[in-house]
């Protein structure tokens, strides 16, 4: 085989490998979701309990991805979880919008859902979302359920 054809074959191989990497990065991983728009603004939201929310979790409004959670810290004064949200610059929300920690499916990953309010002013870089709803903690829910059950049924319920 001549030197030229070997070089062409190697070039093909390298190109194929690079294409495979590109495919893995763009189609089968999250690189593409970073590159849309690019520009973001950061707001923070305080929650009494962030549940299983993790950094890099999606931020959605009406179920559509609009950004990501970039950091989660604990405010040592109020003992609240502070989540920093990066939201795409082309999407603005009224100042009194509320943030909820929601779960995808019954046991899926948690994400932040933003419900727009009615304020004429919009959230800007560095603002704090004041109206929040914490994550649903399954243990508390079950505890509450048992408590209510006991209150409803009175002493006769468990005996039967």
């Amino acid at each position, binding site marked *: 085989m001549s030197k030229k054809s070997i070089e062409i074959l190697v070039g093909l191989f*390298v190109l194929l490998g690079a294409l495979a990497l590109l495919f893995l990065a763009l189609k089968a*991983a*999250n690189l593409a979701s970073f590159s849309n728009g690019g520009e973001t603004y950061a707001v923070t939201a305080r929650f009494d309990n962030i549940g299983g929310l993790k950094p890099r979790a999606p931020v959605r409004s009406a179920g559509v991805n609009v950004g990501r959670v970039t950091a989660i810290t604990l405010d040592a004064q109020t003992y609240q979880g502070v989540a920093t949200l990066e939201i795409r610059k082309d999407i603005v929300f009224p100042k009194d919008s509320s943030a909820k920690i929601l779960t995808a499916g019954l046991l899926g990953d948690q994400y932040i859902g933003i419900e727009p309010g009615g304020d004429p002013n919009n959230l800007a870089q560095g603002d704090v979302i004041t109206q929040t709803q914490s994550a649903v903690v399954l243990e508390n829910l079950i505890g509450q359920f048992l408590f209510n059950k006991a209150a409803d049924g009175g002493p006769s319920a468990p005996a039967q």
Partner: protein
Amino acid sequence: MNFLQMLGRRALDVLASWGRGALFFLDLLRAVPGALARPGLVIAQVHAIGNRSLVIILASGMAVGFVLALQLYNTLTTFGAAESLGLVVNLSLVRELGPVVTALLFAGRAGTSLTAEIGLMKAGEQISAMELMAIDPKARVLAPRFLGGIISMPLLAALFSAIGILGAYVVAVLLIGIDAGNFWSIQQNGVDVWRDVGNGVVKSAVFGVICTAVALYQGYETEATPEGVAYATTRTVVMASLGVLAMDFILTALMFSTP
């Protein structure tokens, strides 16, 4: 006393062989810059090592993707989580199976041929002849092969993972009927470019170094007889595979232990 002496001799032998391996590896690294100055040799080796391994890598990747999708679908449907099939296939390929299986196949397909080639060069005294002509065989023969292996391995692993995911797509979407949009979007949500794909590339590069270095060392240290070459070729596969598996455990613990 005899037993003690035997034990001591074995221990010293093991230490000496580790030391020879380490010195050989350092010599190899030192010869790399010289090889970079002669890219023609490296390109020829990428062709011999990389291009010629393409068929087996692509076929195995496709087969692994097929069976992973089939098996996972059976298990995941019992939990009502068939949609996450794409994510599980993607993560297991990109993080583990891609680099590891590619490295094992690479040791078998390319490592053995490197060992046999160099072992026969040694048996035919070509290496000694080079030394007589004041040509450093490490720079002329070994380093281009080493570089060729390091360049080829990450590309092959990426191709393995990519074709595996496409294979899973064929089974999951075209045959079973999982929604295509869901198949891709769950991967884009769950797979991180740097953490998962990036670490997979790092892994495969490390495995490339291990496989190629072991193959070259075994070839270079072989006894110059037909049995010696046969023995060295076998040892290449065994030692490279064990090295890759051990290294994979360490790398996985380092890369993926913290959430």
